[in-house]
């Protein structure tokens, strides 16, 4: 057992797989001796050398495209995009190439590749370095989408992502790089499509992702003082998606609120709401609520940015309105 931050957990998971399999390599902007923009790959260059931890030019298109070509020809690349916002530049390679190649080719080529992307607001990085774009990638058949909220989940899910034979998008919330916990380094990889109940409760189900898991847990504590016991569920993977755990919870609580950091319009929160509406309507005693970021670009000024993202208080008051 070792106490690790999420950042260390991601680094350790990559390093563990790289020690086990020489076909696993990491590349991206400044991931080498510099250690990555956020420091995630710090020290890996020293351990694995320049062939396996490669700096690329600032060329997001060819970063993703290189991962596709390398994965199709025997490697298991991990590509890092410095911010999820930059995926726009590599979107063809992700959406038209990585996601579709296996299908278009009748299953003849596998693409065991991981694209890691930090996302989320909270550091005044403004509109082009702070978005939560999980709905864009979750929309695309052929991709798997992972979004952990804890260090341990990040460790176990990244082990699985690197072992997976398909393209996996691995989303890392910048503000969660510092959350830490004890992790058994020899733990088994965490299977995709298995949600985790982060807090058990009987009165309302809160489905949350990323940083909103932590804020929902804080809100649940406050709600508990007022006699409302919230069950907080983190889907952990958006595709495959564990409907069953959520529907089972709603069967018990009869109320659900979905809390994510996305722009509400066209969000993955909307997809979760639609699934619950289609398959869990009979369990519901109240309308499904979505609590998301506002439908604005992410603003710069700290006061505006804070207002943009749902807060603990927002979650508490939204839940209270359901009773």
């Amino acid at each position, binding site marked *: 057992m070792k106490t690790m931050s999420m950042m260390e957990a991601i680094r350790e998971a990559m390093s563990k797989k790289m020690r086990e399999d020489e*076909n696993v*390599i990491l590349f991206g902007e400044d991931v080498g001796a510099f250690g990555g923009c956020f420091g995630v790959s710090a020290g890996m260059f020293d351990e694995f050398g320049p*062939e396996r931890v490669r700096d*690329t*030019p600032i*060329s997001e*298109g*060819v970063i*993703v*495209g*290189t*991962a*596709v*070509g*390398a*994965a*199709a*020809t*025997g*490697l298991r*690349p991990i590509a890092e995009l410095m911010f999820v916002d930059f995926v726009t530049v590599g979107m*063809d*390679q992700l959406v*038209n*190439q990585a996601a579709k*190649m*296996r*299908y*278009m*080719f*009748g*299953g*003849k*080529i*596998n693409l065991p590749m991981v694209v890691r992307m930090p996302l989320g607001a909270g550091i005044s990085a403004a509109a082009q370095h702070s978005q939560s774009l999980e709905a864009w990638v979750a929309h695309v*058949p*052929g991709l*798997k989408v992972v979004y952990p909220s804890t260090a341990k989940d990040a460790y176990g899910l990244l082990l699985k992502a690197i072992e997976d*034979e*398909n393209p996996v998008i691995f989303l890392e919330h910048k503000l969660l790089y510092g959350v830490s916990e004890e992790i058994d380094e020899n733990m088994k990889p965490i299977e995709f*499509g298995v949600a985790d109940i982060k807090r058990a409760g009987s009165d309302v189900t809160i489905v949350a992702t990323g940083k909103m898991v932590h804020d929902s847990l804080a809100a649940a504590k406050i709600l508990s003082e007022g006699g409302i016991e919230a069950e907080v569920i983190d889907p952990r993977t958006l*595709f*495959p*998606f564990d409907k069953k755990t959520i529907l089972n919870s709603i069967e018990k609580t009869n109320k659900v609120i979905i809390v994510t950091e996305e722009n509400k319009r066209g969000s993955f929160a909307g997809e979760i709401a639609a699934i619950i509406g289609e398959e869990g309507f009979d369990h519901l005693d109240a309308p499904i609520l979505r609590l998301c970021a506002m439908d604005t670009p992410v603003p710069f000024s700290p006061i505006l940015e804070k207002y943009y993202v749902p807060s603990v208080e927002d979650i508490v008051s939204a839940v209270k309105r359901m009773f």
Partner: protein
Amino acid sequence: MDLTNDKIIQMYKTMKRIREFETNASTLFAEGRIPGFVHLYIGEEAVATGICAGLNDDDYITSTHRGHGHIVAKGGDTKYMMAELYGKETGYCKGKGGSMHIADATKGILGANGIVGAGHNIAVGAGLSAKYRKSGQVCACFFGDGSTNQGTFHESLNLASVWKLPVVFVCENNLYGISMHQSRHQAIQDVADRAVSYNIPGVVVDGNDIFAVYEAAVEAIARARNGQGPTLIECKTYRQKGHFEGDPANYKPSEEVLEWMSKDPIPRAVAYILDNGILNKEELERIDQEIIKEIEDAIKFAEESPLPSLESIVEDIYTDIVEEVR
């Protein structure tokens, strides 16, 4: 040039096989037997043939929406290609890809591609993989002049050159990006000029001269295999047909068409073969008949093959997920 008569005959067969496949595809499309889009390679056969003649079986290629020629030249089976054009279960991609997405990993064919300029990036990845694994493999990346205005062209040549990857970039300058003449879509005449900015060799060859293409290919492939990095080969050629079948191509001046028809690569190769006594007329005729028969058989195979089952629609997206998609 180091070319045996056997090799020359093989190259002729490949060009002829491509021409026969494409000519039939044109007819079948006009008859409504092939759905979707078909982009034909007629007139450009010497490029794919000359480049692939220099590659080994385990070398890679990336291709384009106009990919039939590349796939035939790299050893693709015309039977499975034709079945794929028909959307049949026996096609290369089980009817899920069609003309623009034929791939055969066993022959190093990393796929035709419907996105102009997308193959460049993938070729860099294959080159990185080959270099990292020290496999000695090379990737030939085929693309048209039109794609050299995409950002992927620059990103890929830059990365391949700075990492010295074993990639041969093969520009098929067929003078048109869809309907747009090269003189209207870029201010240079020779795409190869751009090699200067990557500090790699840029070579211009007559893309309708099979031997000139082969010679350039052999040199670039050797360079790549020896760890000296990529080369940009520009093959000047001509798309004899429209961009896609059904395109009347009335944007092409008739003098231009006539001029290029006179430079058709296949009669030129035939003349060389006859003039040098490599084959006589009867032998050539016998080869032609064999190829005509092969393509007839491929059409028959495609016609008689079953359509894909509706259940198969959810298969092959992921290696391990089927039910969640249904």
